[in-house]
């Protein structure tokens, strides 16, 4: 135990070892939010470089990993800011999102659910789902087809619990834009998770 602590203390002085110790964790964290391997690698590299420059301010409060994730979050924010500046929202996400496929286009029940797209009863609780890590793999896969900024906004909101205003600032979009993006993500995700997780089990 004492031996181990000494090892950690010694390793933490050498930044190259940070890559082995925390690289995969930071990469996984960035990858989940950015869904782009090269952007996630860049974020890890920028994080470790920034950590190297400010290592004197770390002082060993809390774990090194928590400290690094704190820096990584700023790098992810920078990434989304850049994305917001470089690519106008309308090009990527379509400002007027048409979710026509889910609802009846005409007739007496125009605007109501298409029967084969309407929600089924899941009958699940968060506690049950938490025990099934495959469920979260399905969720992760379902996020991938969405435009990067839509899945990014959804994760920052629903996983990290950031406030709407914070995400709007980061992405350089209006509250209304953000709501449309989140709505789009939810509609797609709910349906995808139902098809790939709940439905096969109900049959």
């Amino acid at each position: 135990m004492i031996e181990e602590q000494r090892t950690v203390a010694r390793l933490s002085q050498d930044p190259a070892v940070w890559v082995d110790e925390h690289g995969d964790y930071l990469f996984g964290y960035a990858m989940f939010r950015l869904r782009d391997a090269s952007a996630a690698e860049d974020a890890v590299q920028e994080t470790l470089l920034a950590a190297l420059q400010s290592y004197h301010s770390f002082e060993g409060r809390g774990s090194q990993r928590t400290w690094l994730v704190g820096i990584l979050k700023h790098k992810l924010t920078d990434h989304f800011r850049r994305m917001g500046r470089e690519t106008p929202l309308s090009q990527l996400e379509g400002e007027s999102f048409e979710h026509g496929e889910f609802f009846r286009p005409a007739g007496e029940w125009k605007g109501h659910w298409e029967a084969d797209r309407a929600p089924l009863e899941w009958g699940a609780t968060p506690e049950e789902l938490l025990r099934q890590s495959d469920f979260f793999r399905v969720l992760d896969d379902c996020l991938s087809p969405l435009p990067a900024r839509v899945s990014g906004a959804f994760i920052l909101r629903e996983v990290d619990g950031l406030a709407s205003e914070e995400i709007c600032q980061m992405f350089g979009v209006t509250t209304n834009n953000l709501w449309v993006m989140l709505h789009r993500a939810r509609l797609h995700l709910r349906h995808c998770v139902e098809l790939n997780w709940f439905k096969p089990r109900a049959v």
Partner: protein
Amino acid sequence: MTLNPYKKATHALRWFLLHRLPTCKQMVEVMSQSMERPLTLRERVLLKLHLWVCAWCVWYLEQLRLLRASLRARAAEVAGEVSPGVSLSAEARDRIKSSLNRPSS
């Protein structure tokens, strides 16, 4: 079919509401926004009435909340753990290491 008068009236009322209320397509948007801001009184009343007559939308709202709750609980549980199957490539690892050895460049 012999429905009692109360059931008959309820049935007729639901039918009427389904035709007159905002559609599911409009309500899913309101439900999504209910995750972001407090709804106005008008929205709350319309949503309540809609949910009274539409089981699909009841499940929809439940599922939006379930997804948020389970995602946040999961994030708290796996914080600090390496996600299985996601790792830096050997190439990226080397590149990052060498960039750390010459931080001035």
